[in-house]
């Protein structure tokens, strides 16, 4: 066991996979010599050299297109898109190329690649550098989508993503980069498609992702201490495949559902999950499922404003408590 930041876990996860498999290559803007603008890939260039860790021009389409072509023909590229907001300048690969090629070719082609990206708010970067865009990817058939919340999960899910034969979009949360956690020694390999129950409870299920997980956990503690409400907290981790068994199982026990989503409200991952639960577990529900999201507005830059829009511990506590009438 060692204490590691979420940031350093990224480099360790990539290094673990690059050391294992010479077909794993890594490309992106300023990722090699400079170690990335978030310093999340420091050391990889020195360890694996300029042929495997490559700086690119500011050409996001070329980055993702090249990753795809390499993946189709035998490599296992990891591509960085610096901020997830920039998916918008290379969205064709994410929406139309990676996820459709295998199907359209009736299984002839493959696309084993990982796109990792800095996602989420909290850095006061304003509306074009702070978005949570997991739903941009979740909505596209043919992708896999994960968003770890801890350093250990970063490594384990990175390994799972790199080893997965399908295109995986890997969301790192920028505000979690400095977060520390205990990480086991040795190889860590996790599984896509698995949620994790991070707190058991009986009164309600709270689903959260990435930065919202620690907030949901803290809210659950406060709900317990201050209001005697015992919440189960599930770290969704993987949006596609979605671990509906864990989610439906939890709601089946607690009979109430809350989602804590950083994305602006409309068509967020919580909407999809609520629609699944409302359909398949309607009679399990003792009250309305409630979504706690960032309001449907662009993100403001100023700290005081940004802090007001993301779901906070207070807002989660207040909303759950109000709903449960506790």
């Amino acid at each position: 066991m060692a204490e590691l930041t979420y940031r350093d876990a990224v480099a360790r996860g990539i290094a673990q996979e690059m050391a294992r498999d010479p077909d794993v290559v890594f490309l992106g803007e300023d990722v090699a010599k400079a170690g990335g603008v978030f310093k999340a890939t420091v050391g990889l260039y020195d360890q694996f050299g300029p042929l495997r860790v490559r700086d690119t021009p500011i050409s996001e389409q070329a980055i993702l297109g090249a990753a795809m072509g390499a993946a189709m023909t035998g490599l296992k590229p990891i591509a960085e898109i610096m901020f997830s907001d920039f998916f918008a300048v290379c969205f064709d690969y994410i929406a139309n190329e990676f996820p459709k090629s295998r199907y359209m070719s009736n299984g002839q082609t493959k696309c084993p690649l990982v796109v990792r990206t800095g996602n989420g708010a909290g850095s006061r970067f304003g509306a074009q550098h702070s978005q949570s865009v997991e739903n941009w990817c979740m909505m596209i058939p043919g992708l896999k989508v994960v968003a770890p919340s801890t350093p250990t999960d970063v490594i384990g899910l990175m390994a799972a993503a790199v080893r997965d034969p399908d295109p995986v979009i890997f969301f790192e949360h920028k505000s979690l980069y400095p977060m520390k956690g205990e990480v086991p020694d040795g190889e860590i390999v996790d599984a896509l498609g698995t949620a994790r129950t991070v707190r058991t409870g009986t009164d309600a299920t709270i689903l959260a992702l990435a930065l919202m997980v620690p907030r949901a956990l803290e809210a659950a503690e406060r709900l317990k201490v201050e209001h005697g409400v015992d919440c189960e907290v599930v770290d969704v981790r993987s949006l596609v495949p979605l671990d509906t068994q864990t989610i439906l199982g939890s709601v089946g026990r607690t009979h109430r559902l809350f989602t804590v989503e950083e994305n602006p409200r409309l068509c967020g991952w919580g909407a999809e999950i609520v629609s699944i639960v409302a359909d398949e577990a309607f009679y399990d529900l003792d009250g309305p499922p409630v979504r706690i999201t960032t309001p449907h507005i662009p993100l403001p830059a100023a700290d005081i404003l940004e802090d007001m829009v993301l779901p906070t511990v207070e807002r989660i506590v207040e909303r759950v408590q109000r709903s449960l009438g506790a």
Partner: protein
Amino acid sequence: MASKAGHAAVSMDRRGGINDDIGEEKRLELYRLQVVIREAEQRAFDLFLQNLVKGTSHLSLGQEAVAAGFAAAMQPKDLSFCTYRGHAHTLARGVPVEAVLGELMQRDNGLMRGKGGSMHLTSEPHGVMGSYAIIGAHLPIACGAAWRAQYKGDKDVSVCFFGDGTTNIGAFHEALNFAAVWKLPVVFVCENNLYMEYTPIGDVTAVQHPAADRAASYGLERIVIDGNDADAVYRAAQTAFAKARAGHGPSLIECMTYRHSGHSRADPAKYRPEGELEKWKERDPIKIYRERLKQFGIGDDQVAKIDADVRRIVDEATEACKAAPPPSTDILFTDVYADGGWAWRN
């Protein structure tokens, strides 16, 4: 015209064959490939008129020399990246006519059993790594395949075909710069057929030669060739492939050509000035090539034999497709993911 070979000296060798830089065998292959494309595409058009080709389709009638010239210069492991107008390039790599027509006719014998359709022809075993229907998308993808070759020390070249209109989309620019900086073994082939869908390329482009006049932006040589002359195409391809295999990076080749039919099956191509089509038909690549064969002393009988042979293949393919069932619907949910299925949940 950067193809420096020009008309090489001809010398008959002892066996009566042709011994210029191309040679009889390659010339017959070039001819055959063009005829295969011509006949199969013409058949596709006829089948469309009979309502047997569904969806859309984009023919290369008139542009056969480009596909044939490049394919004839390719090694088996070289890779093709095509557009929606990709039947020609797919056939040129040796994909059976039946598989192509079957896909256009949405039959179970289609190349992708109807899942992809005419715009997405793909045959991994033939090195046809897909046909892409979003303009420009495959240029970066071809770069990636070339990167793999470079990284692994493989000697294959990735060849990426696209139209004149495609030179104005962002991905073109990103791919060209990327390929040049990384010195990738990729060859970009612009088939300049003078039109995007219905708009003349000159109306929307700042330079006369939409690809070649931009080569310098990527440190590349300016290459414009006669895309209706299969020999010229073949020579330009050879030069570019040799450069790529030698590790000297990408090439961008603009082939001047013309499509005889409309943009897609729905298009009667009324936007073309009167006489333009006729003028280009005089330079029909197959007509040109028949003359070329004659000029190099290849007999009419050999030509006739190829013609008949191809006609028979296309006829048989047509019958096989007509007889083939529609795709079995159990393929609907297969191959979304590598495990063969489509499960997005547990």
